[in-house]
Structure formats: C-alpha cells, structure tokens
C-alpha cells in the first residue's frame, strides 16, 4: 500500500426539501411540496433550488442574482430562520430531517418564494437614504477614520429584508418602518458629512417608527451581513431622545 495522501472526494448526500408553493393563477392554497435532491457537501440551499428548477420542476420560482451574498435577492425562511439561500450550506443544516424553505414573512407572496418587496423599499425611501449636504466641495468630503468608524456597521446592508421580515412587530400590520429602514437611516444619521440627521430622526420619531421596536433581537439574528441591527435601532432611539446624533 502506498501512503500517498488522497484528498477525500466531496461527499454527496440525499436530502429532502419541502418548498412552500403558491401560484395565484392555479387557484390553489399555498402548500408544501417535497423534492428529493442529491447534493454535494459544498452545495448551498440555492444550489438545491437550482437543481429542482433545472432538473425536476421548471415552474419553481425564486429570486437570485449574484449567488454570492452581495445582491440581497434571495432572503428566504430556511428551517424557520431568515437566511440567504446562497449563504446557507446544506451540510450545516440537520440533513437527517427535511429542509423547509418558504418565503419571508410579512410581505405579500407573489409566487412561490417571491414576495412583493415594494412596501419594504417604500419604508427605505421614506428615511431619505442619501447624503444631504448644503456645501459643494471641490474635491472629496474629508472624514476622519474615527468618524467613519461610527457608522461602519450599517454601511454593510444589502437590503435583503431578512431583518424586517423576521420582526414580529412588522408581521402584525406591516406599518412599522422595520429594522432595515432604521439601519439605513442610522448609516446617514451618524455620518459626520451629512446634515439631514434631524430630519431623519423626526421621521423615525413616528407612531410607526423606532418606538415600535421591542428589542426582540430577531433582526440581529437574521442579518446575513452580521450587522448589529438591534444595537443600531437602540442608537437611533437614544439620538431621538437627545435630539441629535
């Protein structure tokens, strides 16, 4: 026998996925449909969904674009937790049991895993997520590394809606601005170059603003970018109480 080290082959597994199906046109209620898929140890839930769509049922509908955790298209509820399908390795889930995949909650389902994101984007737009500045510098706007660090965490948002659609307050009536809008307001409120903090604090000091947050931490748990969402919301609450960032 030679003692040449053979790199292990990538293991393959048989898994069952239960996918929540809904199609307005077939007149049926939303239902679970199961698919058996052969997956590799390197496969993610997104790969399994691709295999279903390409090899078993072309009508399965879901959003994805970058497939690498950057675009924020494929947030879905995987085994009851909001995750990006493209960042969830199947081998990290309990493969002895079926894997449940359903659309994120609190937004209207359009088809299968696709939801209407417009209410989510409207809340985002309402907090004015762009630089508000009165001056027009010749070159760039100078900012110290310390001032940049102040809002570093909230610059990482990819608007996937995993946080907002994991929030039980958002589930109730969908009127709450939601964690993602507050995260993106935070990104400008604490930016030393921005002059619109008061306006945004006033917008979030609303009946449906930050005060509806009950510190459940679902959002922090859900965020695929590891943003400390609940902390950002708490900082905005503090800023409103102080009257300034």
């Amino acid at each position, binding site marked *: 026998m030679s003692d040449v080290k053979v790199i292990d082959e990538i293991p393959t597994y048989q898994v069952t996925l239960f996918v929540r199906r809904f199609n307005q046109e077939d007149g049926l209620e939303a239902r679970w449909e199961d698919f058996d898929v052969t997956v590799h140890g390197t496969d993610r839930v997104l790969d399994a969904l691709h295999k279903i769509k390409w090899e078993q049922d072309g009508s399965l509908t879901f959003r994805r674009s970058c497939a690498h955790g950057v675009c924020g298209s494929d947030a879905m509820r995987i085994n009851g937790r909001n995750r990006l399908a493209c960042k969830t390795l199947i081998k990290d889930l309990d493969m002895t049991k079926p894997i449940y995949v359903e659309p994120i909650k609190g937004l209207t389902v359009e088809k299968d895993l696709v939801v209407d994101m417009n209410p989510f984007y*409207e809340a985002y*737009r*309402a907090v004015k997520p762009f630089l508000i500045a009165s001056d027009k510098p010749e070159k760039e706007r100078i900012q110290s590394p310390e001032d940049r660090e102040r809002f570093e965490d909230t610059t990482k948002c990819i608007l996937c809606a995993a946080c907002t659609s994991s929030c039980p*307050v958002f589930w109730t*009536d969908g009127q709450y601005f939601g964690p993602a809008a507050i995260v993106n307001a935070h990104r400008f409120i604490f930016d030393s170059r921005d002059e619109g903090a008061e306006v945004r604090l006033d917008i979030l000091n609303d*009946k*449906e*603003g930050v*005060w509806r947050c009950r510190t459940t931490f679902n959002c922090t748990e859900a965020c695929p970018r590891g943003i400390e969402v609940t902390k950002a919301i708490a900082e905005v609450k503090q800023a409103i*109480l102080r009257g300034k960032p």
Partner: protein
Amino acid sequence: MVVIETPRSPRSRKAAKFERWGWLYMRISGMFLLVLIFGHLIINLVMNGGITQISFAFVAGKWADPFWKIWDGLMLWLALIHGTNGMRTIVNDYTERETLRKVLNYTLWVVCVSLIVLGTLVITTFDPCVDSSVSHTLSVCK
C-alpha cells in the same frame, strides 16, 4: 448634469410624537416597579411569618405609617399606567380595524383611571375604626 428624481415624501400616516414619552415611561416606571413590587412581595409574603401574618390589623398597621401609604400609592399609579400603556401597545399590534382599536384602548384607559381613583381613595381615606365588627380588636380604636 444627472438629476436624480426626488424621493417620495415620508409616509403620510399621522405622526404621534408622544410615543417616545410612552417608551421612556415604560423604562423609568419599570425601574421603580422593580423595587416597589419585589419590596412589597418580600415584606408582605416572605418576612415575619409570610402570608400567615396578613390580616386586617396588618394592613391597618402598615397604613398607619405615611411611608407605606406613599409606597402603595406609587405602586398603584405607576403599575396601572405601566400595565395599561403596555396593553395599549399590544392592542395596537393585534387590532386591524380602527374602530375596534379605539374601543379597546378607550376601555383600557377608563378602567385604568377608575382603578386609580378607587385605589387612591382607599389609601388616602383609610380609617381602621370605621367598621366596628372588625376594628374593636385593634388597640388604636379603643
């Protein structure tokens, strides 16, 4: 020059700027209630023989002291407003129709105010000697 379309104006829902005071109140009253409620429970139910000590005389004895009148009065006001405001939050979460929401919230505050008025009346006007059938045993009434 590229002109970016002005984003739409903020949502037109009625802005209620007192929500921040409600939020602050829950935390400040919560801090007081922590001391008041657990102090109340320990003194009434644990110390000096626990629940067996509780009788009309025990209550009369406590309320002879202004300290306990203020303690109980604070507990009454803070807890009722805290609990009612908390219930208001839950009603706002669960109701879908505006009329039902209004009815439930008005009912909550009417109950809250009634209980505060009655409770305050009891604490401030308490007289251990009014009912002779029980008070004749109390030394203060002799």
